[in-house]
């Protein structure tokens, strides 16, 4: 027996399709780029500053947590970078540095690491951070106040807030096309509708996100918005407005589709997406908050473990009815 040769022994299967968490993270970041670059081109260096700080902080928080827990460093899978990037994209360009530092702490550590790290978070980490900040420092997401000094060449209006307090007629001069092209106020990377749709299509094509969630989210939102619009067109916005304003598109393609906090079976994905879309419009139209995406998705995250139990019967399963 030739003792010198040592062969690698491992369990089947001996092939792998080459997918990895890192690839998925890179795909997500590439998909977010069009909307992000648009935001940076509108808001300039301050926006780039927020994004850069956010990505860096998120990764450092994870590294710090790895260090504290004595784990192997896991930042090379770039999942924290994705969290940082998305968190930054939701902030206004004028966000102060400390809110980025605190926000990424809330996202990475409170939103994810304390639940066991990647894959363990019951809520979307980015959205839990945004929700905590919205409740603690409500002014941070006041886009009128934050962006008052900007004059990018189009009317700097945050459509959802205007609709909420002045009715749909007050924004009738904004065309859907302008909103699609990002001519509105909002988060750094959340305004450019066309960019987000492109990114979403890229993610669906590369199977990083589950199309069922995105599509059912949009459909649920459109149907609910349409029902409101039909009931009182002067007060409630038309479905197109709901689709292109606020966090709807970034929510549909980047936030609701977070792996750990969303269902994986077909019917639960449809329920989850449609439920989040429905709640978004409900909160926007009759709730207390201007934008409902954050809380709508968080609420559906809460329901996820329950609805994901709706699954097909496995092959050969014997179900004993008591």
């Amino acid at each position, binding site marked *: *027996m*030739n003792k*010198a*040769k*040592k*062969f*690698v*022994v*491992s*369990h*089947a*299967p*001996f*092939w*792998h*399709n*080459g*997918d*990895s*968490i890192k*690839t*998925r993270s890179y795909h997500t970041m590439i998909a977010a780029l069009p909307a992000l670059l648009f935001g940076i081109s509108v808001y300039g260096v301050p926006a780039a500053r927020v994004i850069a700080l956010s990505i860096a902080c998120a990764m450092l928080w994870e590294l710090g947590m790895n260090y504290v827990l004595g784990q*192997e460093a*896991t930042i090379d*899978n770039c*999942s924290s970078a994705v969290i940082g990037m998305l968190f930054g994209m939701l902030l206004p360009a004028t966000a102060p540095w400390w809110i980025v530092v605190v926000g990424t702490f809330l996202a990475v550590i409170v939103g994810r690491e304390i639940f*066991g*790290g*990647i*894959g*363990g978070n019951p809520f979307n980490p980015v959205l839990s951070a945004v929700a905590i900040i919205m409740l603690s420092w409500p002014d941070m997401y006041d886009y009128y106040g934050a962006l008052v000094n900007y004059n990018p060449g189009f009317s700097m209006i945050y459509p959802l807030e205007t609709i909420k307090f002045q009715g749909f007629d007050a924004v009738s001069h904004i065309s859907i096309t302008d909103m699609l092209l990002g001519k509105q106020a909002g988060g750094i990377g959340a305004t450019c509708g066309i960019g987000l749709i492109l990114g979403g299509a890229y993610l*669906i*094509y590369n*199977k990083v996100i*589950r*199309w069922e969630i995105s599509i059912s989210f949009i459909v649920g939102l459109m149907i609910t918005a349409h029902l409101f619009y039909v009931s009182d067109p002067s007060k409630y916005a038309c479905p197109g407005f709901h689709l292109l304003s606020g966090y709807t598109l970034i929510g549909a393609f980047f936030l609701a589709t977070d*792996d*750990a906090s*969303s269902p*994986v*079976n*077909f019917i639960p994905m449809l329920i989850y997406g449609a439920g989040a879309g429905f709640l978004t419009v409900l909160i926007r139209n009759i709730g207390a908050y201007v934008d409902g995406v954050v809380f709508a998705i968080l609420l559906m995250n809460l329901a996820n473990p329950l609805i994901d139990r709706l*699954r*097909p*019967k*496995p*092959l*050969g*399963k*014997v179900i004993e009815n008591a």
Partner: protein
Amino acid sequence: MKSSLFGSATPGFRYAISPHKIEDIPMPEQAMLFVEQPKTRDRKYVIKIGDTIKTGQKVSVFDGEASTTLSCVTGAVADIQTYRGDYGQTFTSLSIKTADDETDDTISALNQSTDLDNLLPFSGNIPGAPDLAVFKRYESAIHTIVINVLDDDLLVSVNQWAAQYQTSNIKQGVGFLKNIPGVKRVLLIAPERMLSVVNTIGAEVSVIDETYPNVLPEFLMRDHLNTVLNEGQSPEELGITFIKAEAVAAIGQMIAEKTMPLKKIVTVVKRDGSCLNVKVRMGTPLKTVFDHLNITTRSGDRIIVGGPMRGAAVYSEDIPVLPTTDCVIIQSESDIQGVATTPCINCGECIRVCPADIPVNVLVRYLENGLYEDARNLCDLMCCVECGLCSYVCPSKMPIFQYIKLGKYELSLIETAEEQDE
């Protein structure tokens, strides 16, 4: 691998087409026999170094232990060792210095009659290792025999080759199987491109879509026999048994030529992924096969006995070609994708790929924590058909398939322990 964009259709692999060429590997100087009798403290050897073994002779290693292993070579025992396989399997391996074949009485008995009773000792010892004892164990309750012309793993084309080029033997074998008491139906499952060959065999033919994992027994039963195999059940309990095409050919050969078939077809997959079939004497160490094919092995390589999805990696190249060895794969160090300790990220890829609709993402969380009974009761562990696709697609590179096999193994240990307590 092809899979649809909108994930509703189950993705699948296409099968390799069996190459026409076959390489004959000559009789090795040193052969190896595996006897499934592990060494324990109180067992006494009845065999010693220097003993001569004849071809077809029943090989027993320990006193008072029944053996079912027949030698496939003639020669003197040169060394006795123990080999450990996966999940507690232990064999005693005998190195044999080969000589010219001398046949044992077991083979001569075939000259008198070739009915089921005479063939029984050979089950498990001829190529394809057919289990003929099931027909005795279930006392004529087996009514359907399924012969699959495709192999149960990718790249392997042993059964395809047998169906293509040993058709007359298969015809003989099918005739024999049809005459077994109780058997009403012999079903041959073949891909469409092989219909012209298999239609001449004289058995009922069902066409199969050539994608993995459609070829696994559970799916064959569902798709071709309209029977669902319930968890924990064996096909034999439903009166169905599976025999490989190669095994049927071997049975046919025994009946026609009144000898024991000693040469086995093996698919060898080289480093560059190219496949070729070789005809090799059972008992030949893998090293001899590699040497003949000019394959040099190095430390850090991975040698896999079986296919890429369901095979088993081995730690030594002295392992012989066994009746069940259909494929040998050699992978270079640079081609080996390792596993990682990253937890499940709940991406849902495994759910989309699982042909048995098991909630793999939840199952793996139970298995990681050793909660095997919960995994069985809540997450359908026993419904797994062991295709390996979940591990194949996992972006976290979790060894999901290994967890599943380990879970099943641990559960079987728990059950055995409970039975002993009673």
